[in-house]
């Protein structure tokens, strides 16, 4: 890699790279994200490369292994350009057919195409797939254009031109103004206006300042930050460089969750490349600005993602939150002014500088601009990473992108915002994924988790699940969080076991609101959300558990009974043979029955019965 010394060098390099690329007749884009790696995409890549070599196409066809495309459940997947042909669930043995048919003859291999689960139709190109079509993929789309291990790829598509534009053409104050005007808000959970944070940090006294990228991503089921850092690390670095220039920082850190080895590897590689090429150094490209970035590995707990805990962990101390009466933009890492932003927040910065604040502000709603990446999971047909403008409704996400309920079940609720987010009922699905709107409705956008739940979900059980997670993850320092979550969980456990009393609902509400108002850090302040939001929208379920001692969804084991539906029973006897507790009675040609005294509610009979004759109520 040759070092570049001026902006002119960078432009010349980009021109040269683009010229080389003109010679390529086709590009096979293979997803190499963590999800697809789990489905052995590496073998597919090797097979494809071998096949191309065999057929003498090594030079004219480019194979690009990229970061996650978001549709992990279809992996390993491949997009062929030109043509935008989309193949999924590829096996190494398919390589020969793909190369001979599609590359050489321009034909489509039908059996590798994607079948839309809603219409049952085969779909040929990526852009026609409903999962992608209803999205507004700006950040995620860039993943497909670059090999995350290649700075040349990034530079070829215009990478680092936003940074050099800022460095040589826009003074720091104007950079901050631009970010302010864009309306960008933090993607890490709080939705704090990024420009305001930068402005305060820029104003804060002191010469030594820091920027940090929060890639600790501890929410269960969330992986948008992993996807960006793994798939396009230079984009995140460029955002940080622009931020550092704006606030006057000399050093940056990327704090990566310990369980993300590939993200750590790619981020390290990207920093090395940027150093070698001269984009991270003393007096970058002949300017007066010096900046470097280091990669740090996370402390391994959820609460380490909280800003003050993260900084303590970076300083080598125990990753525990501390009171933030003076903001970290003034008193942060090593008591110096520090700007901490989420991976996705940083990734949005370069395009704002390049395209202008009004371009960014043209997308989204009044108070929430731009796009947000969501991790869509749960009881729906399509799951994966989804990027939508921030005025898109939950309906669009769940039904147009997610394809609606799996197994034809009707959908009851979504849980948004990660473990400390809230649950919204289906009649609120016309709300947009907007910071303020969701907060007002008792939930939040948070870091972008979205779990869809169907009618077979018990909302009291959901609240219990999240409380258990938060109890395990609370650092235990402050009383309301440590004892409050414990007591809320105690009450909810009582309720799910049929020992709840009606006054406990009021106590839950009062306790929840006390914990929210008095806890030390964000974890405790939001820990009651799952309880409070389910109490707000699904109070009837709590009441059914308490008064009727019934779990309407049939989930809470203590409150359900197993019964044989006489109409559906075909007297086959499978259940009787399957029951390990000998609780089922019945002879040949006789409707079977369950002895409730012996039944241990293990559910084996239900899964054994081929005729859905076992009812849980």
């Amino acid at each position, binding site marked *: 890699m040759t070092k570049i010394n001026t902006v002119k060098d960078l432009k010349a390099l980009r021109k040269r790279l683009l010229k080389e690329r003109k010679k390529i007749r086709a590009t096979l884009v293979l997803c190499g994200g963590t999800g697809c790696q789990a489905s052995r995409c590496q073998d597919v890549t090797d097979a494809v490369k071998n096949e191309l070599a065999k057929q003498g196409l090594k030079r004219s066809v480019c194979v690009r292994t990229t970061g996650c495309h978001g549709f992990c459940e279809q992996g390993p997947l491949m997009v062929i350009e030109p043509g935008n042909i989309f193949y999924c669930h590829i096996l190494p043995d398919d390589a020969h057919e793909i190369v001979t048919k599609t590359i050489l003859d321009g034909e489509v291999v039908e059996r590798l195409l994607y079948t839309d689960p809603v219409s049952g139709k085969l779909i040929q190109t990526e852009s026609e797939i409903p999962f992608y079509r209803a999205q507004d993929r700006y950040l995620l789309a860039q993943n497909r254009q670059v090999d995350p291990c290649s700075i040349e790829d990034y530079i070829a598509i215009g990478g680092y031109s936003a940074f050099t534009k800022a460095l040589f053409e826009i003074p720091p104050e104007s950079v901050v103004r631009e970010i302010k005007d864009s309306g960008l808000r933090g993607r890490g959970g709080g939705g704090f206006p990024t420009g305001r944070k930068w402005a305060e940090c820029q104003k804060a006294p002191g010469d030594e300042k820091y920027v940090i990228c929060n890639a600790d991503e501890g929410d269960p089921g969330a992986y948008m930050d992993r996807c960006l850092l793994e798939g396009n690390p230079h984009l995140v670095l460029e955002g940080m460089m622009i931020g550092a220039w704006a606030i006057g920082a000399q050093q940056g850190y990327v704090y990566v969750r310990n369980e993300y080895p590939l993200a750590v590897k790619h981020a390290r590689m990207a920093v090395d490349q940027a150093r070698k090429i001269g984009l991270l150094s003393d007096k970058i490209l002949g300017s007066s600005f010096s900046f470097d970035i280091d990669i740090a590995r996370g402390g391994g*707990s959820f609460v380490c993602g909280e800003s003050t805990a993260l900084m303590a962990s970076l300083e080598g101390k125990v990753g525990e939150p501390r009171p933030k009466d003076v903001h970290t933009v003034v008193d942060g890492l090593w008591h110096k002014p520090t700007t901490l932003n989420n991976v996705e927040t940083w990734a949005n910065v370069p395009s704002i500088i390049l395209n202008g604040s009004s371009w960014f502000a043209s997308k989204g709603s009044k108070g929430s601009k731009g796009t947000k990446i969501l991790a869509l999971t749960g009881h729906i047909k399509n799951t994966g990473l989804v990027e939508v403008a921030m005025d898109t409704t939950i309906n669009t996400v769940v039904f147009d992108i997610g394809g609606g309920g799996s197994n034809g079940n009707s959908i009851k609720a979504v849980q948004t915002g990660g473990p400390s987010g809230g649950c919204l009922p289906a009649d609120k699905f016309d709300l947009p994924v907007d910071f303020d709107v969701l907060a007002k409705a008792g939930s939040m956008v948070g870091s972008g988790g979205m779990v869809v739940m169907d009618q077979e979900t018990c909302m009291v059980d959901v609240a219990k699940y999240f409380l258990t997670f938060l109890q395990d993850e609370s*650092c*235990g320092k402050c009383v309301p969080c440590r004892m409050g979550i414990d007591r809320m969980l105690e009450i909810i456990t009582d309720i799910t076991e049929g020992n709840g009393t009606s006054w406990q609902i009021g106590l839950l509400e009062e306790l929840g609101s006390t914990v929210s108002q008095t806890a030390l850090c964000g974890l405790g302040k939001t820990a009651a959300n799952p309880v409070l939001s389910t109490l707000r929208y699904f109070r009837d379920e709590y009441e059914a558990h308490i008064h009727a001692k019934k779990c309407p969804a049939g989930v809470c084991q203590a409150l359900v009974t197993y019964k044989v539906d006489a109409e559906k029973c075909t007297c086959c006897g499978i259940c009787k043979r399957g029951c390990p507790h000998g609780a089922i009675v019945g002879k040949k040609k006789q409707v079977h029955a369950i002895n409730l005294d012996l039944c241990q509610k293990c559910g084996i009979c239900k899964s054994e019965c081929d005729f859905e004759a076992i009812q849980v109520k």
Partner: protein
Amino acid sequence: MTPKVTVNIDGANIKTARGSSVLDAALEHGTCIPHLCRVPYIESIGACRLCIVEHVVNGWSKVTTSCTLLVQEGMVILSNTEKIRKLRRNVAELLVSQAPNSRAIQDIAVRCGVKEVRYPFRNSECVLCGRCVQLCPGTFGVKAIGFVGRGKDRRVESPFDIRSELCNECGSCTDLCPMTVVPCDGPMKTGEEYLCRNCESKMAFAEEQGICISCDFGEGFQCERSPQNF
């Protein structure tokens, strides 16, 4: 002399040293704000959340702990509003439900207006206020005890669970531990815990007015204004 700033606490303008906390300023002036984890002259960790106050900025009030909030010129603080009393009572209720066997915690509960405890009592041996950890001078500035574990597994321990070589046997840790003050009627048996409320009559005035009356409760939670601790 350290420069002074003026802060307004519950309507009174108080002149106090820059760099002191709102809690210190209040106590100095005779405004009672209950507190547990704070140790005088040591930087507060803000763990017990009893010393919460409303900090009013541009008409917006924010609930925050007064032990970690440093005074600033013109600051407006409300320490005894309806809202604060209720929150404080709920936090104290959590505490006493966990440690009914501590006289100090019983005192705090009464002082904070806890009238009933709505959770099953548990007899914990430690409420994790952290006073001992804060106070431990250790040897060469390295503490002999510290917190280990997270969440409900959090506990105070000396490294490797044995009395550490760093311990210089000063006894500070047990002196200031709220669990070492023996309750008036002796320890309660498991299953027979109750909220004692014996000394309730003494505090009617303090809770309503939020003024320090140099009460006896202060002994329990080592308030330095308490007559026993003077």
